[in-house]
């Protein structure tokens, strides 16, 4: 399992191993999630892997009733909506995530600032498909 390169392929392999991994600049300490090979802050390229705790808070969200074909094929739709949003990790960076555990019939019951935790569903996608980053509202 090749996870040396700071690529999406590596990120999703780590995710399958239930690790939320980003990159950290060895020079300036900046954290990147998703990982990047090149520091956007000091413009150097000495990165190392950094594992995020998976704990964070909700920044924003939407309850989607007209999804992409990929999500419609997963069974989501007008009467079976899904929710995704932005999560700010305790370590600082933000990530987009599929959000579980909310009452989607009442979108305004979801509260910005709520705590969340990353969950790692067992791989059940088609071969070649990637599991999405997923968080659960606490």
């Amino acid at each position, binding site marked *: 399992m090749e996870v040396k390169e700071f690529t999406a392929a590596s990120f999703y392999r780590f995710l399958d191993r239930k690790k939320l991994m980003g990159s950290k600049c060895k020079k300036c300490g900046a954290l990147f999630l998703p990982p990047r090979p090149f520091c956007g802050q000091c413009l150097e390229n000495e990165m190392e892997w950094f594992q995020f705790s998976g704990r964070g808070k909700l920044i924003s969200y*939407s309850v*989607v*009733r007209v999804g*992409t074909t*990929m999500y419609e094929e997963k069974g989501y739709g007008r009467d079976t909506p899904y929710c*995704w949003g932005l999560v700010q990790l305790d370590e600082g960076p933000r990530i987009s995530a599929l959000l579980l555990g909310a009452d989607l019939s009442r979108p305004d019951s979801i509260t910005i600032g709520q705590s969340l935790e990353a969950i790692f569903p067992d791989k059940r996608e088609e071969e070649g498909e990637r599991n999405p980053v997923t968080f659960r509202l606490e």
Partner: protein
Amino acid sequence: MVRRAKKLTRGVAVIGAGMSHFGAFKEKDSRDLFVEAFQAVLGTVQKGIDPREIEAIYVGNLSSDCFEGQAHVAPIMAEWVGLNPRPATRTEDACASSGVALREGIIAVASGLYDIVLVGGVESMNKLTTARVTDILAAAADAIYEVSVGATFPSLYAQIATVHMDKYGTTEEQLMKVAIKNHDNGALNPKAHFTSSIRDLMNSRIARAKQKGQPIPSWTDEMEFLKDPSANPIVAWPIKLFDCSPITDGAACAILVAEDIARNFTDEPIHVIGTGQASDAQALHGRKDITSLTASKLAAEQAYEMAGVTPKDIQLAEVHDCFTIAEVVATEDLGFFKPGEGSRAAEEGKTARDGEKPINTSGGLKSKGHPVGATGVGQLVEVWEQMSGHAGQRQVARVNLALAHNVGASGSTVVVHIFERR
């Protein structure tokens, strides 16, 4: 390195701008729409122009390769309007593709390489199903990290809306007012996708129900209509159907010339006095704050600085209202209203045609339509018509200074232009 004030080495003016009808035209291909826009622009040049004088062409287009299976559209557009072998270049920055084409055209004239350039944009989206269009548009977000978790464009702007609501108290009702205002404008635009006000739409549905002997809806005004989920269903909460711009086919064109020859073509050229462009993280999660588009602020700052004007001076603006929340945020980012006050300004009618700051007199993307690659130059068409006094029933009192604001995707590209009538 010292930051230099950006300045073009040659002045650039617009001598004409025109567009095809915007709407759903499944029988037409991009090239047909572009010909229609080209013929329209030729008709707007006051003293006429021999099209053979045009030296180059820039075409904004988001994704004809996905929408129509046709990549490499620029030379086709050139050929179909008789402009081969002129250099023909496609620019793409999602929904800002033709705002960027306009900017590249300006830069090219300023460079001295050309004196006369055609800029345009085109998109043909309605041959596909709404589901496929949703997918293709989503590809303009971050396909690896946003589309993977279910992002669609309505749900991207919904993120912005939820935070704007949370931080500033913006309401769903205020956003509905934006839609009502833009439909009111679009109803006066003969080339708009929707040429009905929301009240007219409501009334025609009531009439249809009566005619068919169905239960008659109880809506007494547009707000009741828009609050009824059967009329205005949720697409991506809190974004509803009438918060979204439609899936539109269309094209738009404008002709740019070096300022020193503009009066050969018209006694009333519109001068490009400011241009700005900025980028941002593609994914919303890569940005510190999403109640505003940083790239809008930066692009506007560049354009204002080059033009030497302030937001207060702008008499009319076409802003990128792909969703109602986008218009609210744009009017804040452009400095027309303070952060968080855009929604109230809309509610109070300040952005109406007769308000203090008329926004989207064309109907905006919401009602005029949003053929994504054509949108940026389409905005210039409204600016042109308003500034040259040809906006018909939409005409605002004399406009000498106007602004166009074109956003790519959820704000990873923004282009702002400022135009002056002297």
